[in-house]
């Protein structure tokens, strides 16, 4: 393969979806769990992102972060700093962050009105 020619090969345009102003809600149970996790220190934020992959094509990515290199929208939801990467904002508008208290399969869950389907574990959606 001649990589000089590769360098001049036409670029495939990746159509980036329009960035939308995200609105999201956090259920009371999820707020309680976030309060436990954050404590009194609200300098950190909850990063709510999407990764490619998983059984359905996209996977949720929830992290507590001090900062991120991703270009994010910053929301204040009941005193919690929530960061939503602009690149995945179109997939996350209108979501509800819930917490399911179960011995198995419990934890934070995202209810997403944009998801046509999701896999059994709830981590992946399309």
């Amino acid at each position: 393969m001649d990589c000089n020619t590769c360098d001049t090969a036409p670029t495939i345009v990746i159509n980036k979806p329009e960035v939308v102003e995200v609105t999201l809600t956090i259920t009371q149970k999820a707020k309680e769990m976030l309060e436990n996790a954050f404590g009194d220190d609200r300098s950190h934020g909850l990063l709510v992102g999407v990764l490619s992959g998983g059984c359905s094509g996209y996977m949720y990515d929830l992290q507590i972060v001090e900062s991120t290199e991703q270009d994010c929208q910053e929301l204040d939801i009941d005193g919690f700093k929530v960061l939503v990467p602009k690149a995945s904002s179109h997939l996350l508008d209108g979501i509800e962050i819930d917490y399911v208290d179960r011995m198995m399969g419990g934890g934070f869950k995202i209810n997403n009105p944009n998801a046509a389907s999701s896999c059994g574990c709830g981590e992946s959606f399309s």
Partner: protein
Amino acid sequence: MGVVQLDAYVLIMRGKDCLTFIDGLSTNKVTSTCTTVFTNSAAKIIDMVDVIDGDGYVALIGHNPYKNDIVQHISTRILNQDISISDASSNNSVYLSTSDIDVPDSVTKCSTFRGMLLVAPKNQPIDITMTEADFSEYRVENMIPHQGFEITPKHHPLACGLGHLVHEAKGCYIGQEILARMRSRGRQGRKLVKLPNPVKDATTIGSTHSLAIVRSDVVK
């Protein structure tokens, strides 16, 4: 037996997230040069691609008629990863050699289950020494599936002889749940077979034997 030219596309991906991205969307464990299969949510094949981990790039070599589907499939899933894609199909020709042959330095050579894959600059063509009929004979003899014949969007990878490209222990990818269920229950529906001629609904016809994809319970 010789060298045949393939009707193939060459996509060049650049960026630090390329291999992780391909790994998350396809059936094989992709950490370096390998062959893998992109499948849809019904576990049907979008295309089988040879992944070449080059110096500063990753090349995806697939079947030209399936190029638009693969580009659509992967480009919509690039969110904030460090990935760019260019189409080097018109700059390169792709060949398959049934044995290891000497080629100029400008030709990228990679060993695959089908034979040696050769990607050559368009202006440095490689001599074609095998006819399409010879190639079919080679594929029938070695039970090698090929895009457009056995490897089509109608089938899942297990049905067309690509089970070795479906990694058993890797994480989730689109279609994984279906393929894992088929494997664990021993029910893959159809499978690739080589049968003596004449073969009903053969996918590739050879001189004495042919390939076909038949229901698993018909042929043991």
